[in-house]
């Protein structure tokens, strides 16, 4: 199955992982310590994030560190931003319309 960034961010655990490694690069152990789920479950989430290039791994000595790929993250936030802007704009207008309708009563 093809992975894409939007699927990746649809899951709350994966979003939490992204928030954590956005602050600093982390080893698999350090990352797993933040979650109640099993290490395997956390690894699976990391694998999905890696497959869709949101997360990059880097070997430093004997440890693997997970980094955020800011370029790919930008792709996600850009489109969400546009979608959001359109709808926010719509809904703010609707708020005003509803307010006017109320005051006419």
């Amino acid at each position, binding site marked *: 199955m093809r992975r*894409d960034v*939007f*699927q990746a*961010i*649809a899951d709350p655990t994966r979003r939490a992982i992204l928030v954590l490694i956005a602050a600093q690069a982390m080893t698999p152990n350090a990352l797993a310590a933040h979650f109640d789920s099993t290490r395997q479950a956390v690894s699976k989430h990391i694998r999905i994030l890696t497959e869709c290039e949101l997360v990059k791994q880097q070997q430093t000595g004997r440890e693997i560190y997970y980094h955020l790929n800011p370029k790919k993250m930008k792709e996600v936030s*850009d*489109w*969400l*931003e*546009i*979608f*959001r*802007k*359109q*709808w*926010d*704009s*719509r*809904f*703010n*207008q*609707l*708020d*005003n*319309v*509803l*307010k006017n*309708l*109320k005051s006419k009563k």
Partner: protein
Amino acid sequence: MLETNYTRVGDNKLLVEREFDSSVEQVWKAWTETDILDQWWAPLPFKAVTVKMDFNPGGQWLYYMEGPDGARHYCTVTYDTIEPNRSFSGDDGFCDENGNINKDFPVMKWNVGFAAAGSRTKVDVEITFNSEDDLNKIVEMGFKEGFRMAHENLDRILQKQPA
């Protein structure tokens, strides 16, 4: 300002949730009566203009969105189910000025739910695409359009700068 929640559900669905500070009846009207719809439906800087509306199952809403450059983008919603003050669903797509669907663009299935939440009304908009590719296509279009608008803004800013 009330907060809007955006969620992607699975491969081909987007969920948009928002509360409005009015009764269910009033919010329902705002989503289904064209004199109100035209006042808010188009995101800025566009404006929405209804050509015709038949708010019945199988009926069609034909409207266009006019950009600041005067270009008109025709869109249509063909209503499927209607439960007054509770929900309506329909197919949303791009079309020509006579309402003939443009098959080059993905059709989106809309399901809009209304529910009282205290003195407010909660609206759930579920947008379903035929496939993941269709969703990505729309997203890409929004992406490109957004870039185009951003670039035009940038052009304006740059023009104002002394050389």
